[in-house]
């Protein structure tokens, strides 16, 4: 029976002709837009996650402590909530790092009368300590240490970045939703045309006593088929777009975001897009159903 109804739906799809093609194109457009924003957003999300892993808070100390005191201080800080690890960096080590950074200009550092760099504690926060609230609480706690002169680093900029990522996702959803609405209306129009072309079949089906859901099923199925075809095309567009643009964008993405490779959508995302397309088409098919006859 399902095979028969599917055959009827295919026949209907052919009848809808250009309008069905328009509907499929609109579904393709809306899902491709949604998928592209999804792809960008998930890559930004990955960058944010990497940034979070690399977060360091630096506590500059008022003076350099003897080794025993320094390790006691580091141990005290390590036991604070939100701290994953602590490393003491003495003045000499800090100067060494500066020389490495300066490279061929390292001689400049040698010309200094005395080492101006302070000793510091490099703190790697836990995942909890890397959130906006967690990092702020940790900074407050570190500021209360009598040895603390100044605190550098933090996560505010990462949060701003994450906020940008969320905005991009919401914008993508908005664009996708507007296009999806247009797609639903077009599928509805296509199905309404089919409904008119199919009224002979529907009349006969009702006269011979076919259950109403069987009478309506081909309309629903042809809407769903339009949606599925649109979704498949959208995924194809995304794959082609990714293959063409991905390698060109990767150097830029690597420079700006620190992400080595622009990742494509995961299989679950693709399945979701397919289901969304089928659902869009189904809704369009359902909206054109009209009133059952007496």
């Amino acid at each position, binding site marked *: *029976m399902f*095979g*028969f109804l599917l055959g009827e739906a295919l026949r209907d799809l052919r009848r809808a002709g250009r309008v069905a093609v328009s509907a499929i194109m609109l579904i393709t457009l809306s899902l491709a837009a949604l998928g592209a924003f999804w792809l960008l957003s998930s890559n930004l999300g990955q960058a944010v996650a990497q940034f979070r892993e690399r977060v360091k808070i630096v506590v500059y100390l008022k003076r350099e402590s003897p080794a025993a005191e320094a390790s006691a201080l580091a141990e005290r800080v390590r036991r604070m909530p939100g701290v994953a690890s602590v490393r003491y960096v003495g003045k000499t080590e800090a100067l060494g790092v500066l020389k490495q950074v300066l490279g061929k200009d390292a001689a400049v550092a040698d010309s200094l009368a005395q080492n101006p760099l302070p000793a510091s504690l490099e703190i790697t926060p836990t995942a909890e300590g890397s959130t906006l609230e967690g990092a702020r609480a940790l900074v407050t706690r570190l500021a209360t240490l009598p040895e603390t002169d100044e605190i550098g680093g933090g996560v505010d900029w990462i949060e701003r970045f994450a906020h940008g990522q969320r905005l991009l996702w919401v914008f993508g959803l908005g664009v996708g939703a507007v296009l999806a609405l247009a797609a639903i209306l077009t599928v509805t129009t296509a199905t309404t045309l089919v409904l008119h072309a199919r009224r*002979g*079949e529907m*009349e*006969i*089906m*009702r*006269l*011979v*006593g*076919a*259950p*109403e859901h*069987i*009478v309506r099923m081909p309309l629903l199925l042809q809407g769903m088929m339009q949606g599925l075809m649109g979704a498949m095309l959208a995924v194809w567009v995304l794959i082609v777009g990714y293959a063409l643009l991905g390698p060109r964008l990767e150097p830029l993405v690597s420079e700006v975001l620190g992400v080595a490779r622009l990742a494509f959508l995961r299989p679950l995302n693709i399945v979701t897009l397919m289901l969304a397309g089928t659902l869009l088409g189904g809704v369009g098919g359902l909206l054109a159903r009209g009133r*059952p006859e*007496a």
Partner: protein
Amino acid sequence: MIELHRVGKVYAVGPVKVPALSDVSFRITKGEFVTLTGPSGSGKTTLLRLLYRDDVATEGEVEVLGDEVTLLSHSQVAALRRSIGIVFQDSKLLPGRTVYENVAFVLRVLGTPRREVTGRVFDALRAVGLSSRAQAYPAQLSQGEAQRAALARAIARKPLLLIADEPTGNLDEGMASEVLDIVKDIWAGGTTVLFATHQGFLAAALNRRTLTLQSGRLVKDEG
């Protein structure tokens, strides 16, 4: 099989009420062949539509195959119609499908297994003498052939009751007699038949029980 008790049907056209049937009562038992006759506009089609619940009586009771049809839900109406074969003056064949596909279509929508469809379609086409025209499209058929195809579609499901609404209305006398002979064969196979016609010669040729409607009233029940 069919029982009508004081049935009336009034159509409201804006504020104007147009009576189509008034105080119609009769009974048809299983296996009968009954002719429903009367001039055009006498209410024959309205009466038949009440039987398969394409319309609802405004007065009285309409009982078909043991069901009071005015009280049936959508799904019960569908179940009732599965036991009734219906043919119309215009054959209502689907133009984009062949004769075979037209008959097969109703079997498939009612869930007949695919392996049984072909056999049953050709049984029905043989019964109406149309098996050689199975691959023809409706536009390629004569009016008589189209009506025979419609009959094949109606009987392929082996209905208990055949309702024929002027199936010979557009046919000349020769073709009408051919169609009538087929309907008689169907009746001889055990199907109850209610055959509407405004053609007096057919009613006379049938020589069966005849219900005569005039201006929506049953004026004669004889034979």
